[in-house]
């Protein structure tokens, strides 16, 4: 595939997922300008490696590249964020965790939810964004985040648990103020 024909098929298969790419990069970098740079770089990488793409799932393929580019960027610019240990494999559902947060989520407004998601460690943030905003299946998430299926499931569970805790603390603060 050369020049113009490669560009044409790339524009058809990959360019339509620009919003998904930007959304993921924006959530991982938490900054508009950085997200734009990451997406731009990811698209150039994607174009370079487009020969290795065989037309299965353009979105998952692109998001995998966006994710890797984002992590490279985070490592370079915000390495402390990546150093949080995550014990995915351990199912640490303790007995008191079984009590659901006493929380009426219907009342949570977008601003608070956005803030709560941003507070999550990046590994939790990415599975939540892929699941809740991109509505990807576990299998697609596993492909994008390069994780085993079981880890996707446990990480999502832990991400939601943590999110609910953050939301509870935020709404608590709000109630007090």
């Amino acid at each position: 595939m050369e020049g113009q024909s490669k560009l044409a098929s790339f524009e058809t298969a990959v360019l339509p997922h620009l919003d998904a790419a930007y959304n993921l990069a924006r959530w991982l970098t938490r900054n508009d300008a950085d997200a734009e740079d990451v997406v731009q770089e990811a698209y150039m990488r994607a174009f370079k490696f487009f020969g290795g793409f065989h037309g299965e799932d353009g979105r998952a393929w692109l998001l995998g590249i966006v994710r890797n580019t984002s992590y490279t960027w985070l490592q370079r610019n915000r390495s402390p964020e990546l150093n949080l240990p995550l014990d995915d494999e351990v199912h640490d559902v303790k007995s008191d965790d079984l009590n659901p947060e006493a929380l009426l989520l219907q009342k949570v407004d977008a601003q608070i939810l956005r803030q709560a998601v941003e507070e999550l460690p990046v590994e939790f943030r990415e599975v939540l964004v892929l699941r809740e905003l991109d509505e990807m299946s576990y299998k697609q998430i596993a492909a994008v985040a390069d994780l085993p299926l079981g880890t996707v499931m446990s990480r999502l569970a832990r991400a939601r648990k943590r999110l609910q805790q953050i939301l509870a603390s935020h709404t608590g603060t709000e109630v007090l103020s």
Partner: protein
Amino acid sequence: MSCQTAQEFIHAYVDGELDLARSLEVAQHMQECEVCASAYRNQTALRSAFKDSSLYYSAPEKLEKRIRSSLRREAKSELGRRSFGWRWLPIGVAVTLVLLMVLVIWRTLPGLRPSADELLAQEIVSNHVRSLQLESHRTDVISSDQHTVKPWFDGKLDFAPPVKDFSSQGFPLMGGRLEYLNNRAVAALIYQRQKHYINLYIWPVEQGNNTGEVATKRQGFNLLHWTNSSMDYWAVSDLNAVELHEFARLAQEAQ
């Protein structure tokens, strides 16, 4: 199903990722367990909160423009990089074909390449010039006596060259020399005409057709070639063509 197991599967249940049998078990458990049922309600509430929240970031328009133009640039430079070799391929093929055709024509058309005779004439002129460069190189056997020169070749050549002295006609024999020409050992006889030297090269040929003299000129030297009695003769000298022809006639009459 225990609460712990149920809550492990609730996420996959909410996400529609649980197989049918497990889904039924989870659903049944929740009917009996208020704690797990409320955990489930929390998850679905969280999911719908996400759905309603417009948390999705859309790419700014300028980003799309930026990426499109970068892609075009990249595609262009890739085309330049990758096809550099291919772009020249047809030209390379054409040049190769032309060269091949030239070679074929050169090999098939005798007029366009030096003939065997021309190459030989060149070889003979070179030999003649070299023989004159050094006095010592001019003759192996110095004698104006044909009866001295002729036997000298015995045992050195697989043929007996006719050796004649033409002193009385103004072409004295100076001597003889062994040479290697036309891929074989040949006899070279040296004659003199005033200040000019004549080399007469002689060797036997397979086909014994007698031919007349063929005159050529090369680098200012006159050459005469003829075949007589199964012998090839090449006479070469800086002597003028008329006198060289006279010499050749003498040599042929003598045989």
